[in-house]
């Protein structure tokens, strides 16, 4: 379990991380989502005691990071694939990490095997592709068999097979009851892996919710309907008390799961339909809408998705 309380990082005038308070719980994959520059990496570095918070604190299983005895046994992190000496072999890179935390050398071979780098264990890391570097970083995170794992943009630079591998790995780690915290700037990626979602923009918390809840709130269901008798159809829907939005291209949109009543209504009025399709707004759109609000010079691009969040969003706007 990771607890953040009022975590703040200020660089001069700029607030990179602004009073973040949330908890990352065990047993699920928690996605940490935000556009580039939202403060995700800064937050993660503060969680690992690398950067000093201006205010607030982080607790790892109730302890400060600096106070952990052999921290790699509590929390393993992949920050960026290049955080290693390129002249050192994969095996020696992991060995020096293992020794610093009293982890037996046999564990190095195990994690190399887990990430599939056994055959290049004696090769220098500078010859590795981005994907291999990423795997070596993940091996380092797994080294101490920690209860908490943290990955910063782990699928960056991975090929489709590698992406599939890391998704499966994260899910299996969470199913073993571990705390898994993973950042991304892609909603589509989170939708596939995360059970819980923490969204930030400009360093502020925008949402802290379960993935299912986020989908339910944001994936607006609507029906798209087209007819050569456009005006008659629109009037008929109006008369039936159904709110219609003109979607352009000769199409009408009706909120909600309304395909059946609309079809029946059209039949009653003897109207020809060329299209009657139930649709869902994409999560990516919902995420963009949510975070666009926190970007200072961004044009207003539609109503905020939820009143509860709007309060946060308006706060976010004040931030320089």
């Amino acid at each position, binding site marked *: 379990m990771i607890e953040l309380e009022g975590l703040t990082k200020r660089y001069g005038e700029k607030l990179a991380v602004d009073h973040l308070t949330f908890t990352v719980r065990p047993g699920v994959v928690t996605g940490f989502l935000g556009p580039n520059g939202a403060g995700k990496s800064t937050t993660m570095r503060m969680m690992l005691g690398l950067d000093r918070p201006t205010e607030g604190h982080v607790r790892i299983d109730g302890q400060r990071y600096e106070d952990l005895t052999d921290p790699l046994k509590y929390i393993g992190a992949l920050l960026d694939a*290049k955080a*290693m000496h390129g002249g*050192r072999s994969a095996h020696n890179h992991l060995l020096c990490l293992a020794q610093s*935390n009293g982890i037996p050398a046999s564990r190095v071979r195990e994690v190399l095997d887990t990430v599939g780098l056994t055959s290049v264990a004696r090769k220098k890391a500078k010859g590795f592709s981005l994907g291999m570097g990423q795997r070596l970083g993940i091996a380092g995170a797994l080294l101490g068999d920690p209860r908490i794992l943290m990955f910063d943009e782990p699928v960056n630079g991975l090929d489709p097979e590698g992406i599939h591998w890391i998704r499966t790995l994260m899910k299996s780690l969470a199913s073993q009851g571990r705390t898994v915290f993973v950042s991304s700037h892609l909603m589509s990626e989170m939708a596939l892996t995360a059970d819980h979602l923490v969204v930030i923009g400009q360093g502020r918390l925008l949402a802290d919710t379960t993935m299912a809840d986020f989908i339910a709130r944001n994936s607006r269901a609507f029906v798209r309907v087209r007819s050569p008798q456009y005006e008659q159809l629109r009037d008929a829907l109006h008369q039936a008390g159904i709110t219609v939005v003109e979607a352009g291209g000769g199409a009408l949109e009706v909120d909600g799961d309304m395909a059946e009543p609309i079809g029946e209504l059209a039949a009653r009025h003897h109207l020809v339909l060329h299209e009657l399709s139930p649709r869902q707004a994409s999560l990516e759109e919902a995420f963009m809408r949510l975070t666009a609000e926190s970007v200072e010079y961004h044009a207003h691009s539609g109503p905020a998705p939820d009143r509860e969040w709007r309060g946060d969003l308006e706060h976010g706007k004040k931030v320089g």
Partner: protein
Amino acid sequence: MAASQVIRSEWTKIRSVASTVWTLSLAVVVTVALGMLISALSRHEFGDLSRSDRATFDPTFVSFAGMTLGQLAMIVFGVLVVSNEYSTGMIRTSLAAVPRRATFLFSKIGVATALALLVGMVTSFLAFFLGQVMLGPHRTSLGEPGVLRAVFGGGLYMTLIAMFSMGVAAMLRSPMLSLGILMPFFFLISNILGNVSVTKKVGQFLPDQAGSRIMQVVPRLDDDTPYGPWGGLGIMLLWVVAALVGGYAVLRRRDA
């Protein structure tokens, strides 16, 4: 977290990169070879020396003549050991594994110092013995007064130069910046400041000027240095302590 674990880890780090081997072997080879060359030349030229120069001829010090160049390799070793962590990004991985920054820094410096001391002593004794061989009839021996102290001191001098560089690198973080300051300083600037009469009063307290006093056995004629061999090494040690304290202060305070 036991310091012994971190020391083992730092030993693995230092022995698993190529720069350790090439900087330290360069320090040995350059110091010894150049010392031998200058010793051989001195033997050849001895007949042309003035009477006063013959009186103050210091065969021990002559055999250490390669150290002006060899110490540069020690500086590169000291700088790279520390600043490699920053230039590669390894520092974030290292500090996540060892969040106690004093334990991290002083284990690293401790391991590198032990290695520098070993190599420094080997270099100093080799430079002395092979230099004396080259000097032929003008040679001295370890049994003469002050000679053992000078040879032992030569090893300590090289170790302290490496430690000073580690401290500076911990403050500056960038290998290029650290080398760009330390190399010209120790190769040129310090020598000028320590030998030009106007600046000598201050220049003689610079780390290498003070520290190298320990390698002299025969004092110069007009020697008015206000410190002796061990006093000079003590001054150098103070510089080293200051650099290490500064390096730790920077590491403790700043974000990784």
